[in-house]
């Protein structure tokens, strides 16, 4: 099995960008939902989404006023903004376009169609009226792409690097989504008083986790249990622990995997030390920051081991 380093890098990024597009759409959809449940007058600002996506500098480049319209215009309408959904989709498309020899034809067609959809729909999906439908479309189309990849790709190197990209991005985005709930900004505004269970329910829903949570934990959504669930539940495919286990499984058959596996081990230790009951919102936020730094290290290790290898 031959896998060019450059191709490995591109399929890895393709998977990351598709996951990023899906999870950004999930994040916006969840917040969109939440806002409609919050009593008038105490609504938190939309800029929290910008902050969670580390997109403050990008936002300032495009806009002055931090309001709903501008945040959504950034995330849905601005194809050139690195944090936007159309940007992620376009980047995914460029990566598939340059690796069509290892990716099934249907995937190219689906990614291409997703690209055409996000480009065409961008303008009229910023407003509340069409927004939800747009976000659902993006999520669904990404899921179809993942479904085709899973049901058609040989379990070889290309599959491994696709999975690595997807799981790494997903772990990153899952922690970011939880960060919405951990934001001290929300607490300070007093926006979520009395509707905390709604907030956490919405966040679970954005990860399609609400049903699973109810079956396993119970009907009442409560902060600590919800955070525990999406961080630690090893059977739930979007939990951080599930992603880390998956990353470890994909790394194992690769040659030259020592450095990456060491970072995975650090990540597992970090997760074992997680105690939701002892954490307030700000401690949770700090914990998520640390997790994200380790995810960054993992990416670096993958990059150094495989994407720039093979020099003779």
């Amino acid at each position: 099995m031959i896998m060019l380093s450059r191709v490995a890098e591109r399929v890895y990024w393709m998977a990351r960008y598709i996951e990023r597009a899906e999870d950004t759409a999930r994040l916006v959809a969840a917040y969109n939902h939440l806002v409609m449940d919050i009593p008038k007058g105490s609504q938190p600002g939309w800029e929290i989404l910008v902050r969670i996506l580390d997109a403050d500098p990008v936002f300032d480049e495009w806009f002055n006023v931090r309001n709903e319209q501008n945040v959504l215009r950034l995330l849905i309408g601005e194809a050139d903004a690195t944090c936007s959904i159309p940007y992620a989709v376009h980047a995914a498309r460029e990566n598939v376009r340059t690796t069509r020899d290892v990716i099934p034809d249907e995937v190219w067609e689906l990614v291409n169609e997703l690209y055409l959809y996000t480009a065409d729909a961008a303008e009229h999906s910023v407003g509340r009226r069409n927004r939800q439908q747009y976000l659902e479309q993006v999520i669904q189309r990404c899921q179809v792409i993942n479904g085709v990849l899973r049901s058609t790709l040989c379990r070889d190197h290309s599959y491994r690097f696709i999975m690595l990209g997807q799981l790494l991005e997903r772990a990153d985005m899952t922690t970011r989504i939880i960060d919405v709930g951990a934001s001290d900004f929300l607490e300070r505004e007093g926006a979520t008083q009395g509707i905390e269970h709604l907030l956490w329910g919405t966040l679970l829903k954005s990860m399609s986790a609400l049903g699973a949570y109810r079956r396993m934990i119970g009907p009442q959504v409560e902060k600590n249990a919800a955070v525990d669930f999406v961080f630690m539940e090893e059977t739930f495919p979007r939990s951080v622990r599930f992603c880390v286990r998956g990353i470890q499984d994909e790394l194992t058959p690769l040659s030259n995997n020592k450095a990456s596996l060491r970072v995975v081990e650090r990540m597992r230790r970090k997760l074992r030390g997680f105690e939701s009951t002892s954490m307030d919102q700000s401690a949770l936020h700090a914990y998520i920051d640390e997790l994200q730094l380790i995810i960054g290290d993992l990416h670096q290790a993958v990059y150094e081991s495989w994407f720039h290898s093979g020099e003779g």
Partner: protein
Amino acid sequence: MDKNWNRYSATEYYDELITPKGTPRQVARPAVKLLKELPTDDLAARRTAAEVAIREMGVSFTVYSEAGNIDRAWPFDLIPRVITAREWDKVRRGLEQRSRALNMFIHDVYNKQKIFADGIVPPETVLESTNFKEQCLGASPRFGVWANICGSDLVRDSDGHFYVLEDNLRVPSGVSYMVENREITKRVLPEIFENYSIRPVDDYPSQLYRMLAALSPRDRKRPVIVVLTPGIYNSAYFEHAFLAQGMGAELVEGADLFVGDDDCVYMRTVDGPVQVDVIYRRIDEDFMDPEAFREDSALGVPGLMRSWLNGKVGIANAPGSGVADDKVVYAFVPDMIRYYLKEKPLIRSVPTYLCMREKDREYVLNNLEKLVVKPANESGGYGIMVGPHADKATHRKFAKLIEKNPRNYIAQPTLSLSTAPTYIGDEIKPRHLDLRPFILQSRDTWVTSGGLTRVAMVEGSLVVNSSQGGGSKDTWIVEGRL
């Protein structure tokens, strides 16, 4: 739709589907009948379906412009072009013969140069060409074949005969669109296949693989073959990916390859270096190896030439094969066939005046308004003057160009390119077209069934290049008595 076809007037040109009387040619009858029976809005709906299919399949080509590179949807006309197998088989044999002679010529030029010594071709016409690469002198690629992939452009004149217009021996492109055109026709006009036995075209990638595998210097059951592309911004990138995928080969860029101390070529993979046996290069030789050719090339692989000359890797087309891809050399191909093969040329060439010959030049300068003047080394339809369509000022401009650099210009009589019914707006109109078949050669020779038909979409125009707004048609070689 019927009234449209009845209004279709065959012109003074040869029409591929319709006779001068206005009736369909025998081979085209079932297709024309079906198309005639389709209501206008149905035909329009199918054209839309074809456009959607092309967009979704991502069949595209890249156009360079001042505003950057644009990825454009492939232009496609619904109405197929139909050729009988009997007629095609004659053309095919002619192309095989031509390709064999051209390869013997290239090998001769870089080795014994007998054709010069015997006075058939004047040496300076070849040795002074920019396409002649002295780095290749003495090289001996497998089977003595240099141009493993040849894309020859054919046109049909008003006498009904096919003529070779030029031979593309460097990095000819278009074959992927030949395959995709068939795929699109199958999707949007499935009924039309019921009454025909049409030779398939989608075996091209496997024929290409077979031809390339024969070039492997190592005796392996499955040699490592790569397609070398300049990258995503190349106009034919779609095709490079298409062919790599069709062959199960790696699509590589220069930076993916390196030449080791043992002169072998390796590619960088996640499991470390892997040796490469055969390179199908889709990158111009000038950019292939900064050690041997242009130093400033960032696209190539340093040492590639050295590896090839030492027989460590097979390269198709071999560097230097462009020496026969020259409009001056073209004029000598019939002589080459007689000289090397001792055969009569089976397919016609267009009479060609070489401006470097004093008598020819005089004739050309006196008859510019009748002739097509072409620079010897350009491709893509650039720098051509079509005499009858050009004004006096352009004639004067070209007269100056020719006098300044006669070696660089040839002239040919204006051919009356054949036409075919083409769906323009809501109407069926005659449009000029050409045909590019592809000839593969290593251990043996193989020709595509038909090829890529390109159409000049503008009324009266002879310019078929897609980079200049041309379209394309599915091309059928039809078996059996019709």
